[in-house]
């Protein structure tokens, strides 16, 4: 056991997998000698050699095309896209290729690739270092989509992603790399070392994909979230005193529908929170499922709290970010509805 922040936990997962499986390779822009702009791959090239952990040209389409080819030829590539905002040049390789290779060859070929990418705002990154594009990828059949909310989960989930024989997108909310951000940028950030989920085994372990985690049991309202928003929702529940049951999805696809349905059928109320833009976001999918499965149990219309449908404005991150105040208002509103 060690105390780790999320960067160290991710590094530890990569370290374990490089050690266990000679077919695991790690690459991306600046990930080799330098160890990544967020330091997630620090020390790995030194430990495993340049062949196992190396820099790539700046070409996201090239990085993921190469990963697919390597994956189809028996390797387990873990590619880093430096920021989720820069994944779009690789869109075709993900959507048309990685996602469909198995299907179009009826199982002859497949690409067991993992794509790691930091996402989310709150670091003054402006419109091109702040996006949360997870919902775009859940809309594509054939891709799995994961987003951890703490170091322990990050390591266990990343290991599952690498071992998975299908392509997986692993989004890392960069605002919580160093601590469970509660949504108040003007307060000191609690470090992961003071949080129970910052206790991380040094050795290999995995957390299965498709299993949500009930972070806080409650009876008034189901709060569905993932990534940074888990901590924001915890803050909002504390502040409002609403007895929220907070579900951290951990995996968007495959989705743990049983967990969601059981909770909403119990509480009869639901608030869904994500940092990504609202229209056609993953929250829309969640509401549709809830309507289909829990309609007769609902006591109030489900509410979404999300980023606005604008690019992430550099100077107005905190006007944009769905912080504890907005989540709290939604909790109060959903409780007032008859």
């Amino acid at each position, binding site marked *: 056991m060690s105390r780790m922040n999320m960067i160290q936990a991710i590094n530890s997962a990569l370290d374990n997998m490089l050690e266990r499986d000679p077919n695991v390779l790690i690459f991306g822009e600046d990930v080799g000698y330098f160890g990544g702009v967020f330091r997630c791959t620090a020390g790995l090239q030194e430990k495993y050699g340049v062949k196992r952990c190396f820099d790539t040209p700046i070409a996201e389409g090239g990085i993921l095309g190469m990963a697919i080819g390597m994956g189809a030829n028996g390797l387990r590539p873990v590619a880093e896209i430096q920021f989720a905002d820069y994944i779009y040049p690789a869109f075709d390789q993900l959507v048309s290729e990685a996602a469909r290779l198995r299907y179009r060859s009826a199982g002859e070929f497949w690409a067991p690739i993992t794509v790691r990418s930091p996402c989310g705002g709150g670091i003054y990154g402006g419109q091109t270092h702040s996006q949360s594009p997870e919902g775009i990828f859940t809309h594509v059949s054939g891709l799995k989509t994961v987003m951890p909310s703490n170091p322990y989960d990050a390591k266990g989930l990343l290991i599952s992603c690498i071992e998975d024989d299908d392509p997986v997108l692993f989004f890392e909310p960069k605002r919580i790399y160093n601590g469970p951000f509660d949504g108040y940028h003007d307060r000191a950030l609690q470090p992961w070392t003071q949080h129970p989920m910052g206790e991380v085994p040094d050795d290999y372990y995995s957390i299965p994909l498709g299993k949500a985690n009930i972070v806080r049991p409650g009876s008034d309202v189901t709060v569905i979230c993932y990534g940074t928003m888990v901590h924001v929702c915890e803050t909002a529940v504390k502040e409002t005193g609403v007895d929220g049951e907070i579900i951290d999805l951990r995996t968007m696809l495959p989705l743990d529908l049983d967990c969601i349905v059981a909770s909403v059928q119990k509480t009869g109320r639901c608030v869904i929170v994500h940092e990504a833009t609202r229209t056609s976001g993953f929250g829309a999918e969640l509401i549709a499922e809830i309507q289909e499965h829990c309609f007769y149990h609902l006591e109030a219309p489900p509410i979404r709290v999300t980023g606005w449908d604008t690019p992430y404005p550099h100077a107005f991150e905190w*006007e944009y970010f769905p912080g504890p105040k907005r989540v709290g208002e939604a909790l109060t509103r959903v409780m007032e509805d008859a």
Partner: protein
Amino acid sequence: MADETLRLHLPEPTTRPGMDPDASMIKVPPAGTLPKPPLDEPDDKMWDYALGMVRVLDDDHGAVGDWDPKLDADTLRKGLTYMMRTRAFDDRMLRQQRQGKTSFYMKCTGEEACGVAQAMALRPDDMLFPSYRQQSMLVARDWPLVDLMCQIFNNPKDRLQGKQLPVLYSVKGANFFSISGNLGTQFPQAVGWAMASAYKNDSKIAAAWVGEGTTAEGDFHHALTFAAVYQAPVVLNVTNNQYAISSFSGIAGGEQSTFAARALGYGLPGIRVDGNDFLAVYAVTKWAADRARSNNGPTLIELYTYRAAAHSTSDDPSGYRPKDEFTVWPLGDPIDRLKQHLIKLGEWSEEQHEALHQELEDEVKRDLKEAASHGTLGVRPCSPSTMFDDVFKELPPHLRRQRQEAGV
């Protein structure tokens, strides 16, 4: 014959932190050796330009050879002033970031000749599609520094209303396209702009810039293909400053060939130029611009230079390259080289240089005071009331509702 075992090649630089800097592998041809070709020279006659390097300033600070643009002393002093103003601006803004007055800054130290000489060689109404390291072009187009500082501070005078990351300027008034944070995307857009110019029988051309690292992106290759197919009146530029954040140019394919040589496969002329030689950069850019303007087609220019500072304020180069590498850089400092040339011509002196340096420091300090008086990111930023504007031309109903909910 038995099959050989395949080996994977992974490029690695020859030096790393803790080692002595070494530039012995960089081959610098003498100045003045390559002749200046006619504007309609066919691209297949231009291999020497893509693989060699156009240089005008020699080791004794004289201007030699065919490419000497023969600029008068006033123009040279103007160029020197623009370069020095850029450096003073960069130094001052870096300090603002360190003091927490803005979130981010990017310097262009060592690359001042590229931007200034190119901006001066192009016409003021030619359209620029710059990368984030071309602030010197705005300086050379006499755009007020106060305006740039207000963008960096995201204060109420920020014309971009706090929407964009510092230094990702948009200056339509200087024919300087909005800079994207996504690398390379503007390269094909410049080609399209140039094609529109040709369609309209205009005389304005376009020019675009990417770093050597960015030549790996598909957009770089799209631009070259389209520029060649439609013979667009565009000047495409690669600033090869040896680094893409932490990775050396070998990761972008620099081990195999020059970046200028990329052009040849597309049927474009490629010219590599000493990017720290103001005169050479001016001359090559002027040639390519004249070529485009006279319907002789596009050119790819590689500006061979060195990124002397960190990639950005988020970066620390001591983690990946030897300290003091710039001191062994064989092409020197562009400001110093132009200064020495002017001194050799008897048109400049150490005293004048020092006086100008002081004058520019004072001027930038004054500008900074004015810009900061309007507010900085931490203190009195611009208002979020425009946060929902300009997603679309008109605010659609869903954004109207969201704006109301946001209460901005």
